[in-house]
């Protein structure tokens, strides 16, 4: 893609840089790079940071002005993402609403839903949790069993969702439910928005590999939501949810891939501090990590090009980027541990991890969530390369 900037874009870039220089200070600067989409570290600081961004008009900048965005072009969004990664602020606390639900509402929501919910996302008033995966339906979402039926003017929801990121902080959930039990698997699903503050919704934390409890399981027992809280047409929730996944694999990847460059710098720092930079094998693997981080960045740029309609199907590019990035990031975690040496095995009290230990343990989820590597490879093979479908086992 053409990375040279027009005068107008250069001016925009300056504006972004100036804003970060003036606002990424104090407590925010002390929490650079802290947190992740499913890590609620320094939550209050990060919510305050989101509000700072919001006040500056830097949240959801691609959204129409009427919903609180700034109608920014894709080039402007790209520049913003690059500058954002360069400045390394705290991770946005309310990214789920901004990156996942918001774009879904923009594409499929009713005018009433958009004007009610989008501005509240931009102003950091609502916290959204995703209710897709279930204990028996992960990368194969179509197997989900949570049911919703109409009772007068309301939907009544029964079932269990799992891996809801930062679920304990959410005041609203968007939940994929089976609304027509007789339809084939991919049909008969609907995407419902459900308020959390009611007796029928029970959010319970689950401890994950890094020791945190930011993923939650959510039990719906006769939970209720008004009839007009369905996004898109009833029984067409599959298409709506897939749109969300496409966005997830798309825009959010860019900023995350840019973070890996910083991680490689930290690995090299750790190797230097431990006087291990003379080890040839470690040097080779650090160089590999450095190269992988650049490939991730270029894949992310290719994805932006694809989203602009130039080049391949963005869904395909997102899949390619995801497979490469998740596998490469797991390798990087392993190299990070060796860069630290034996001290990498020691954690702080309460299972407190340093940044590189987090890379090692947290990266392990990346080839699983958002569609496992195996599912992505199957999809690429069957839908993109046109290979025959995997034989059904006898």
């Amino acid at each position, binding site marked *: 893609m053409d990375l040279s900037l027009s005068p107008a874009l250069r001016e925009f870039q300056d504006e972004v840089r100036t804003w970060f220089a003036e606002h990424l200070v104090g407590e925010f600067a002390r929490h650079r790079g802290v947190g992740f989409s499913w890590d609620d570290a320094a939550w209050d600081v990060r919510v305050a940071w989101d509000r700072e961004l919001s006040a500056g008009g830097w949240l959801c900048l691609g959204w129409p002005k009427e919903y609180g965005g700034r109608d920014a072009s894709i080039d402007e969004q790209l520049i913003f993402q690059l500058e954002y990664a360069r400045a390394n602020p705290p991770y946005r606390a309310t990214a789920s609403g901004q990156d996942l639900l918001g774009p879904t509402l923009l594409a499929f929501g009713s005018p009433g839903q958009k004007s009610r919910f989008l501005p509240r996302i931009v102003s950091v008033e609502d916290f959204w949790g995703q209710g897709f*995966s279930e*204990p*028996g*339906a*992960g*990368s*194969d979402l*179509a*197997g989900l069993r949570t049911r919703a039926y109409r009772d007068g003017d309301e939907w009544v929801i029964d079932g269990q969702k*799992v*891996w809801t990121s930062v679920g304990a902080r959410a005041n609203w959930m968007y939940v994929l439910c089976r609304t027509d039990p007789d339809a084939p*698997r991919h049909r008969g699903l609907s995407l419902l928005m459900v308020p959390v503050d009611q007796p029928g919704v029970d959010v319970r934390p*689950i*401890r*994950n*590999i890094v*020791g945190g409890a930011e*993923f939650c399981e959510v039990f719906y027992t006769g939970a209720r939501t008004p009839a007009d809280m369905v996004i898109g047409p009833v029984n067409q929730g599959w298409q709506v949810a897939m749109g969300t996944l496409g966005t997830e694999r798309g825009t959010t990847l860019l900023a995350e891939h840019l973070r890996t460059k910083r991680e490689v710098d930290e690995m090299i720092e750790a190797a230097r501090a431990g006087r291990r930079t003379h*080890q040839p*094998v*470690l040097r080779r693997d650090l160089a590999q990590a450095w190269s992988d981080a650049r490939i991730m960045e270029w894949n992310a740029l290719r994805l932006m090009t694809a989203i602009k309609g130039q080049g391949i199907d963005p869904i395909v590019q997102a899949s390619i980027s995801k497979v490469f990035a998740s596998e490469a990031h*797991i390798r990087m975690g392993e190299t990070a*541990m*060796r860069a630290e*040496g*034996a001290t*990498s*095995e*020691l*954690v*702080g*009290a309460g*299972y407190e*991890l340093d940044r590189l*230990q987090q890379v*090692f*343990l947290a990266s*392990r*989820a990346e*080839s*699983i*969530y958002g569609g*496992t*590597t*195996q599912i992505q*490879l*199957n999809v690429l093979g069957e839908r993109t390369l046109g290979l025959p479908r*995997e*034989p*059904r*086992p006898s």
Partner: protein
Amino acid sequence: MQTAELEEIVSSVRRFVREAVVPLEAQIDETDDFPPEVVKQAKEMGLYGFAIPEAYGGLGLSAWEEVQLVFELGYTTPAFRSLFGTNNGIAGHTLLEGGTEQQKQTYLPKLASGEWVASFGLTEPEAGSDPASLQTTAVRDGADWVIDGSKRYITNAPVADVFMIFARTSPDVPASRGVSVFMVARDAPGLSVGPRDHKMGQAGAWTADVYLDHVRVPHHAMVGEQEGAGYVTAMKSLAHGRLHIAALCVGMAQRLVKESVDYARGREQGGQPIAGFQLIQAMLADSQTDTMAARALVLDAAQRFDDGTDRKLGPATSKYFASEAVGRVADRAVQIHGGAGYMRGIAAERFYRDARLFRIYEGTSQIQQLVIARQLINASRSEEG
């Protein structure tokens, strides 16, 4: 030992591990503590001395017999093996390989019965897998030695009764002749143990720093009572220890394959068990191949260890391959478990964190590579004469 006798020991340990220890794994991970009941039973079963000769109160397993027992121990949390791993392994073998007959007769029975827990004090902040750079010193003072220094990540230090402390006794000669090893009692004035380390995995297996501040020991506390023999003793103990760790890795890999197959058969996607999908089958097949290859290598190396034809290359290749293999097997197990594999309370998740340490202790993978390559190069050199 007769085949039938070995089979009986192995099968009773297998039963104990699967019936008494496996159900406690999650609790041990959560509390970083081992139930005293299990410790008591392990002592009664002779597990504190399986690799110590019968003459000194142990079961006297050969390396080939021992690795078969350790395959079973590896099936559960590595914290179980760690309870008695140092007595049988690196600490016990320090006495066995380097001690005088009187030292062996006096102390090995205490280790074999579990009356005493022994720790192996080689690693230091500045000397991990390379004992040549030890900083701890022991200086002769009349009939005594005075030891100063600190040791790091010492397994069982929080509960040890005796420490095998490696120290420089001659600063001016190469490490191979300038290091000696001393038995230091826990209550020796000047010896202190730091707080328990918080580790990424292997909860329940305790490690800590050990500090030696002017610790005075009599000359007869020197293992072998022979100055400068410590390095060779350490190398011999570590070679045996590497086989032991390799076998432990095989055991964990066997467990992980079982966890993976069970989960893949039970978990349905699109109306069929994921075990039916070829990419899942590929992962299962790779894990089983890794496991069987590691197992065969360990058994072969143990045989050569016993007949004395190879006590260096085999242990190093076994430890290197088996620890890397179990890392791959644990990685695939998490992948097969999907989101569940990332969550606490699932065995695959716990073993993924536990397995990482195998590539570090008893010599990192990188050190094993150097040991292996040097053996090859030296052998080639001596062939040329």
